[in-house]
């Protein structure tokens, strides 16, 4: 049995009276690629936000490589090795590729507090290495994000994960806004991560993509996990049945 990368127990998030996430128990093993599916508002993104420290959970525990973690913010999660590609791309349009990849955790030459001198060369080299690892080729990394296509932007966002040798990558609908070719580029990156044995959580609405890329599918419905399916033991229709509420996994009976 491989090592458990991430485990959540009873993870719960209420926004006032809205129970956005209720009692989520989840486990991810080393090298495993898991998809999270569900309708809009089913709690997928909420789940991710609790793990990555973007929001503070109401209840429950998150364990990362065996240690219980309480991230105060997304930077904490990043430092621990959880890298997230958000639905809304967290890129600054007027900066170039290395600037964006290192945004918020710049390499510096001298530490002078906020006036620390940037190590442009170090960031450039690390960026090129990261791009190589994800098999992304961006000919001119000094190009500003503003001048890039949607696919390129997404690749830059994903390249962050590789640059920082993250231990877990989470992607929130990485191809939702992309064209066919660009989607393929992103999927190739995901395959490269799989080949490298890097664990991944993928939130996606794209059934074909999910069946192409992941090992396991978790279905959320109305804030609860309602199914945990092995890709080989299920099919598209089956997953849809879980998403819409026609079916609920045996172990989750009574949950929703």
């Amino acid at each position: 049995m491989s090592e458990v990368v991430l485990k959540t127990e009873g993870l719960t998030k209420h926004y006032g009276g809205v129970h956005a996430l209720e009692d989520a128990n989840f486990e991810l093993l080393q090298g495993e690629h898991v998809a999270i599916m569900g309708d809009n508002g089913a709690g997928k993104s909420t789940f991710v936000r609790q793990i990555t420290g973007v929001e503070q959970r109401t209840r429950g525990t998150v364990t990362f490589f065996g240690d219980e973690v309480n991230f105060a913010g997304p930077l904490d999660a990043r430092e621990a090795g959880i890298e997230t590609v958000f639905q809304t791309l967290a890129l600054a349009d007027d900066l170039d590729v290395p600037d964006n990849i290192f945004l918020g955790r710049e390499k510096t030459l001298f530490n002078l507090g906020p006036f620390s001198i940037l190590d442009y060369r170090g960031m450039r080299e690390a960026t090129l290495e990261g791009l190589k690892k994800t098999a992304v080729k961006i000919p001119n990394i000094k190009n500003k994000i503003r001048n890039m296509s949607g696919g390129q932007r997404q690749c830059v966002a994903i390249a962050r994960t590789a640059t920082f040798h993250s231990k877990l990558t989470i992607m929130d609908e990485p191809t939702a806004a992309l064209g066919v070719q660009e989607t393929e580029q992103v999927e190739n990156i995901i395959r490269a991560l799989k080949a490298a044995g890097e664990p991944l959580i993928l939130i996606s609405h794209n059934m074909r993509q999910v069946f192409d890329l992941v090992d396991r599918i978790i279905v959320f419905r109305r804030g609860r996990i309602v199914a945990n399916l092995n890709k080989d033991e299920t099919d598209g229709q089956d997953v849809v049945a879980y998403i819409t509420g026609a079916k609920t996994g045996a172990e989750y009976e009574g949950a929703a």
Partner: protein
Amino acid sequence: MADTTTPTPTAVIDTSKKKRHWPPELNALIGLIGIAIIFEVLAWIVRDQSFFGNVTRLKIMILQVSIIGIIAVGVTQVIISGGIDLSSGAIVGATAMISMSFAQVGSYPKAVFADLGWVDLPVIIPIVVGLACGMFAGLINGVLIAYTKIPPFIATLGMMVSARGVAKWWTTGKPVSFPTDSFALLGKGMTPVFIFLVIAVLFYLILKYTVYGKHTYAIGSNEDAARMSGINVERHKVLVYTIAGALAGLAALVLSARGLTAQAGMGVMYELDAIAMSVIGGVSLSGGRGSIVGTAIGMVIFGVIISGFTFLRVDAFYQEMIKGAIIVGAVAADVYRQKRHAIEA
């Protein structure tokens, strides 16, 4: 762990459409050269002599704008961070009054000028007081904008009115004059230009090569992205406005030292001139773009226009009208650039 050999580069991204990107600073420089040529030609037509052939005139030209240039450096970084600062002119007024009252000599005609009793102090005291006043006003701006989410336009507009009030209240409207010789040195000869150059080079380096600069651009470019990347956006904004305030304070010191007096009405409309210099120099009002180099060029353009009109004996009324049109024109150019970018993207 699975096989970890480097995967073959399958995700090659097409960037065949390589475009030349024209930096806005270059536009400003071309504008400067164009305007210079126009004024030179007009000078020969109207006055039958060269406008730029006179070194003294060029010195005065730069001297006139370099004090506002110091403010413009602070305003530039505020605009790059996606904000605006309308209070810098009023901060100049308040700071000039307060700091000058710590810079007076003992033997001045007390009947006419305000007497505050602090005389013959070492020059460092008014300097520290001036910078601290500017920083304090900027700090209030920054805290209001960052933590109460009041739009920068409104927060700094309030500061503009209040700071002007402080300037008048300090001596109940009387001017403060007769600074010590050492204080007067701050504004003597070409010192203001020298101070501007030091500040401009310093902030050029800071914006380009430090974390502070990078975060300023990032916040102006995409505030949500900056926050998600772990940048403390609120704290950074406070710092940005505090620095802008400090630079306005510095400008007040230089201005009052140069005029050997401080009046409550000092620095009126300086904020708009400073904003105009930035925008003419290619700093985008929507944030994220621009540089100190551009602002410096914008400043020189301003200087050429003001001195040029004076040289051509154009009435001050017309000068103001034309200045207004130039400001609107520069913003229009910025809006046009934005639109073009939006279409390209």
